């Protein structure tokens, strides 16, 4: 029943370092991370925490997305990246295929709900209902599916690792013969809810984040969306796919609701499982796109799990969150696009703001952008609250 390969036909991304994949690549090459004080979100912490906003107002994004500006920014970002991914795939008309849409997000239309709450709390009969009509995570996905004309399957998964879970679920539906094509990834807009939430956990850095650096003190929140177009062997035969989704695994750390276990048990199991599914050895991996949020706990756990798995030597590795910030539900999708593109183009991304070697690790992240690397396999890690750990492996053939 489960058979065949799943290919990446294309990808699209919008983030704080660019409105499309080309702009993001230019920012990596120019060593231009996207952190800044917020321009679009309104928060009393605006001057305290740098964030990585998409540099566009809701009106500008709405025009790009072809959607009303009063809809959740999460939907606007999603539509823009989905359209770019679809265009990149060269597949033509969506109605020619059995196309599914699996999207991840963590707080749905929360950006509008939190605007609703002030009036509602003062008087439960007040507050504009149109601000809460898309509160549910799934409602955001439906808006984008409808705009794209996708009917065959829509679903939404959640967690900070769920962009990666979306790719897994999509790939498995293709392999089961249910669908020919799945657009999979994730989206999340910045909200006061998440900014304040992460602030209560005391894991937001007041400076630019420094993943895998010994002086790191937390993450910067970002926003954006990233999607790949997954296709079956039959569909891939008619196009030039970027690469193949060769392996994936989802494991649970089962240690703490928000913190990672010190030795990164879940991280280790996810990476190991993804390699096993791909029939690969650790030494086959040419580049790791790290989860690398920049918190003390996350990077230490991930680094130790990598050290254990890649015992014969750790391949070049970097956290692109040092440019985009942590985009939560979008991060697995955005980093899947970066990883698949890295494989196709032989690119290794830099890790910004690295200067001091982590004491507990023998390896350090790559700090310079480079092209022309002979990459055969690239790994992408996504870990999250609830102990959720996911790893993807992309292969050239």
């Amino acid at each position, binding site marked *: *029943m*489960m058979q065949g390969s799943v290919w990446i036909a294309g990808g699209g991304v919008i983030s704080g370092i660019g409105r499309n994949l080309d702009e993001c690549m230019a920012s990596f090459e120019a060593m231009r991370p996207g952190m800044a004080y917020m321009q679009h979100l309104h*928060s*009393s*912490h605006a001057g305290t925490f740098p964030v990585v906003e998409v540099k566009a107002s809701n009106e500008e994004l709405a025009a790009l997305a072809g959607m009303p500006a009063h809809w959740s920014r999460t939907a606007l970002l999603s539509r823009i990246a989905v359209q770019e991914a679809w265009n990149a795939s060269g597949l033509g008309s969506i109605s020619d295929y059995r196309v599914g849409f699996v999207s991840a997000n*963590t707080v749905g239309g929360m950006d509008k*709900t*939190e605007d609703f*709450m002030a009036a*509602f*709390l003062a008087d*439960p*009969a007040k507050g504009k*209902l149109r601000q*809460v*009509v898309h509160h*549910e*995570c*799934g*409602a955001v*996905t*439906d808006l984008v599916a*409808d705009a794209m004309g996708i*009917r*065959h*399957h*829509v*679903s*939404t*998964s*959640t*967690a900070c690792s769920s962009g990666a*879970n979306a790719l897994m*679920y999509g790939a*498995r*539906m293709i392999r*089961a013969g249910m669908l020919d094509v799945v657009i999979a990834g994730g989206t999340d807009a910045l909200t*006061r*809810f998440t900014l*304040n*939430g992460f*602030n*209560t*956990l005391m894991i937001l850095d007041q400076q630019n984040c420094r993943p895998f650096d010994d002086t790191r003190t937390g993450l910067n929140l970002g926003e954006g969306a990233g999607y790949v177009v997954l296709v079956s062997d039959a569909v891939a035969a008619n196009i030039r796919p970027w690469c193949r989704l060769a392996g994936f695994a*989802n*494991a*649970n*750390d*089962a*240690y703490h*609701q*928000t913190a990672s276990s010190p030795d990164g*048990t*879940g991280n280790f*199991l996810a990476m190991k499982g993804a390699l096993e599914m791909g029939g690969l050895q650790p030494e086959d991996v040419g580049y790791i796109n790290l989860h690398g949020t920049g918190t003390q706990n996350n990077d230490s756990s991930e680094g130790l799990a990598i050290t254990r798995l890649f015992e014969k030597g750790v391949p070049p590795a970097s956290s692109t969150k040092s440019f985009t910030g942590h985009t939560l539900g979008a991060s697995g999708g955005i980093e899947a696009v970066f990883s698949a593109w890295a494989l196709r183009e032989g690119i290794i991304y830099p890790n910004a703001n690295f200067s001091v070697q982590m004491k507990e690790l023998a390896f350090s992240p790559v700090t310079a952008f480079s092209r022309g690397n002979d990459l055969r396999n690239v790994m992408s890690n996504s870990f*999250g*609250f*609830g*102990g*959720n750990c996911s790893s993807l492996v992309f292969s050239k053939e």
Partner: protein
Amino acid sequence: MRIFIQGAGCVSAQDSGVFPGEIRRYEGDRLPVADPDYKQWIDIKQIRRMGRAIKMGVAASHMSLEAAGFPNPDAIIMGTAYGCLADTGVFLQKMVSQHEDMLTPTAFIQSTHNTVAGQIALLLGCHAYNNTFVHGAFSFENALQDSLLLLAEDPSRQILTGATDEITEYSHTILRRFGLYRQAVSAGEGAAFFVLSAEKGATSLAQLTAVEMLYRPASEKETADQLAAFLLRNGVQPGGLSLVLTGRNGDEGNDAYYATVERSLFGDTPIAAFKPFCGEYPTATAFAVWMAAGCLNRGVVPQEAMVKGAAPAQPERILIWNHHHGKHHSFILLEKC
């Protein structure tokens, strides 16, 4: 391959245990939950800090694992449309009224939708596959579909799957303003979990044959065609069903949709409804699976559930058909085992 429900647990407006027991009836636009004693499964200090969605989910998942006699699932997959609304509401209310100042982390930590599946994994020490679907009236259905895929990939697995959703004062007030309860509709909440595996055992309640979702059908005709095709793919003629268990909720327009399709497809097949027992909420189909599995296992359908025809004795095949505003439809087929 055949998939069996090896154990089930449910927290709802009805008594826990296999349906049907004595049926509880309520008045008003919000059904309360018949809470079990959560201390059986959760530390009392934790109970006080836990939102209902988490408590109900943890309790129902433990009940299903105990019934199946299987403490270590190979995957935990669940659905929730709204997630942990109570904690979300607490954090939002404090954030707004305290102007983003002096906030504490507990409500935020517990607000994330994957808290429940994470808590279940944490309490079981389970490192296996863990996923949460958050897609309105497709949330539980995606969890079921993911479970069936995992079993197709590896039939040796035992999978814990289910759903949870809660009502809060805020959510009830807002949904009422949307006019959801203007007619005879009652809001509901609850959690139901199941242990699924490919091997029939002593505890097997019913066979879970198939699940399918239909998004935005253009008309009742398209829905009827898709539903008929779903049944035929699974070797069942529309007339071969013992019972169609629908998501009628008391809203005229909503219920008329079911009736239109039934007239064209089902002839004399008995029709029932499950929402009078559990209320209307996006993951109520998890309750319906629990109810249908109980009916198949005990060979009894309560007369109170019937919309049309007499309650069938010794039902063989039950189709659960639910739709949410005509936009999200789901079909779940269960058979006696």
